[in-house]
């Protein structure tokens, strides 16, 4: 026989009745009310245990008892044979007890934590990029164009100024650029633009709509026209591999998944929880750089250009003033964003 202290509420009044519940094998007796009541245990519902917070024991007449004595309730439930309980309620209780068991043992929790972290990491690192690639492949190229439209105009209003590169130089590059992009899917509407931009320094940017911007700084840094061509090939690689769209998909999936997992949506703390994922974004963009480099490398090989030109301009770019590093934004890909790996990138082109 087990006795549990609790507060009885009849379900009609907020009046609190301190009572004692006396459990035997098949029945519960409620002591302390004006009249003595008893119920068969199969009709009684035991709420799940949650930490050490009070929980309720519900009776079939709509009354309920709130008790702090969680251990005693667990003991009652453990002693009950499943025949004394309804089958649905015993299944529910079993599940609740498993949960509480897991929640109260540190080594189980550590295991769960480890598996959870591994799954989240694997998901973000491997599943999301592949899924984003597949999804991008299923979307028409017009989606990329929508992402990039209007970006050039807003850049022109802020960080970009008219170019000072001579018409002759530009014309030669425009011609070579037209040839380069002639073999690519015409759905990408390629366009080459030259701009002066003191704040961005030596740089080239690919917008998802196929507009590629070369800064005067980059033109001045280059010592051979093929160096600029190599850079253009890299930027075309960003567009053809649809990095702008894939990046947008990846970041929206990650930023949606965080609140779903953590359970709250609108708090500063949840926003902060999104910050570690920013670290992953850096990894994503390095993957994109590698892909674009590979595109450039293939292009140069197939057009009998020396891959060294790419290595040379990369070398000079990385030697340049680092504080002119531009902010990489979601849809703009520029050169210097992957600095830590520049040496590795250079080596790939030198090996040829």
């Amino acid at each position, binding site marked *: 026989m087990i006795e549990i202290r609790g507060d009885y509420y009849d379900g009609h009044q*907020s009046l609190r009745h301190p009572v004692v519940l006396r459990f035997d094998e098949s029945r519960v007796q409620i002591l302390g009310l004006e009249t003595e009541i008893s119920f068969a245990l199969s009709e009684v519902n035991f709420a799940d245990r949650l*930490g050490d917070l009070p*929980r309720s024991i519900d009776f079939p007449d*709509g009354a309920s008892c709130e008790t702090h004595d969680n251990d005693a309730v667990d003991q009652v439930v453990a002693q009950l044979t499943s025949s004394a309980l309804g089958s649905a309620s015993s299944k529910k209780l079993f599940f609740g007890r498993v949960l509480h068991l897991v929640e109260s043992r540190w080594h189980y929790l550590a295991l769960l934590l480890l598996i959870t972290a591994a799954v989240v990491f694997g998901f973000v690192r491997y599943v999301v990029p592949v899924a984003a690639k597949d999804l991008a492949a299923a979307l028409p190229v017009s989606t990329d164009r929508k992402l990039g439209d209007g970006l050039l105009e807003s850049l022109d209003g802020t960080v970009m100024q008219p170019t000072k590169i001579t018409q002759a130089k530009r014309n030669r590059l425009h011609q070579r650029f037209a040839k380069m992009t002639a073999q690519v899917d015409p759905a990408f509407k390629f366009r080459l633009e030259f701009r002066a931009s003191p704040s961005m320094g030596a740089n080239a940017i690919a917008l998802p709509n196929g507009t590629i911007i070369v800064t005067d700084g980059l033109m001045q840094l280059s010592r051979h026209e093929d160096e600029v061509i190599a850079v253009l090939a890299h930027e075309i690689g960003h567009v053809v591999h649809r990095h702008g769209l894939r990046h947008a998909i990846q970041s929206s999936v990650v930023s949606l998944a965080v609140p779903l997992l953590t359970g709250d949506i609108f708090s500063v703390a949840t926003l902060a929880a999104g910050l570690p994922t920013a670290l992953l974004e850096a990894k994503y963009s390095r993957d994109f750089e590698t892909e674009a480099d590979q595109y450039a490398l293939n292009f140069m090989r197939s057009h009998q250009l020396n891959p060294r030109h790419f290595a040379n301009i990369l070398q000079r770019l990385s030697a340049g003033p680092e504080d002119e590093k531009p902010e990489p934004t979601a849809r703009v890909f520029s050169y210097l964003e992957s600095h830590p790996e520049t040496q590795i990138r250079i080596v790939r082109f030198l090996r040829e």
Partner: protein
Amino acid sequence: MATPLPSTPDEIRLQFNGDGLDYFKIWIANTFLTLMTLGVYSAWAKVRKLRYLYRATELANASFDYHADPIKILKGRIVAVILLGVYSALGMVSEFAQIGMALLVMVFVPMLIVRGRRFHLRNTSYRHIRFDFHGTTAGAAAAYVGLPILASMTLGLLYPYVVMQRAKFLLGQSSIGDNRFAFAARTGAFYRTYFLGLFALAAAFVIGGSMAGGSIYWAEQEETDALAILAIACTAFALALIYLAWTYLQVSVTNLTLSCLRCGEITLRSTLRTLPMFWIGISNAMMVIFSFSLYLPWASIRLARYRIESIYVRAPQGLDAMISSTQDPSSAVSEEISELIGMEVGL
């Protein structure tokens, strides 16, 4: 900011018994099972989480409780996911169809708000007596569609009034047992609160913005490390200042809203203060970042404790005999499919 009045003997403070470590354990199990079931368990996780927070909230030796059936929440979520899928599929076919569907769903938003709120309150109990919600779809349409349109037409001048009407709708239309809550609208007080709050916010933007802007300009002129650090420090200070003003606005609106609410002779008083809320927000965010999100459960508990324990309930005749319900308690279980698109609105 309302200065806390001395507590009177018939005033009872809400107590929060939640524990960060316990909540962390529940959080880990929830996250794990949600992952392993590809999100299906999220409905159970939500109930378990709310149940923990409600049971941890104690008023006059009795706790609140939450009884929602996870299956019903799951059904709502499945419908929401299907709708979202149809919506994105339509986007590939035709933009007109997509806009049409968005408008169609918008028409149902007031109904969803009412149902979500009703589901939530009917599954909430105190001393084994259920809450309920009596708002109508028309009321929701006015508070969530009509008034905001009017507010935007008046360049936001109506905004404090809209916030008040929403609170009146969400809180004033609720009940516990047979006892209706009432929301005593105080339009003047809402306008005063918003005026002060927005003034603080504007001041923070001007002071913080000019400090940050000035220091960045200076750092750009003379490129030294010391000036760069100063610029970063000034920018951080400006952001903190803006967050402080924003917290002040939130705190004063919450305090005012709860002071308007009563249930028969029972009145409420919320004594949230700006600086503690500001500190909790900042330090929680820092800890969450540096713990790679593991601190989140403690952060939630800390915030919940402060918010809940700042509420005082004044019940001149005590709570023992105040609340009654003629409803048959066992039939109070609602049959609503709720929270489509996560539409529940919390306090």
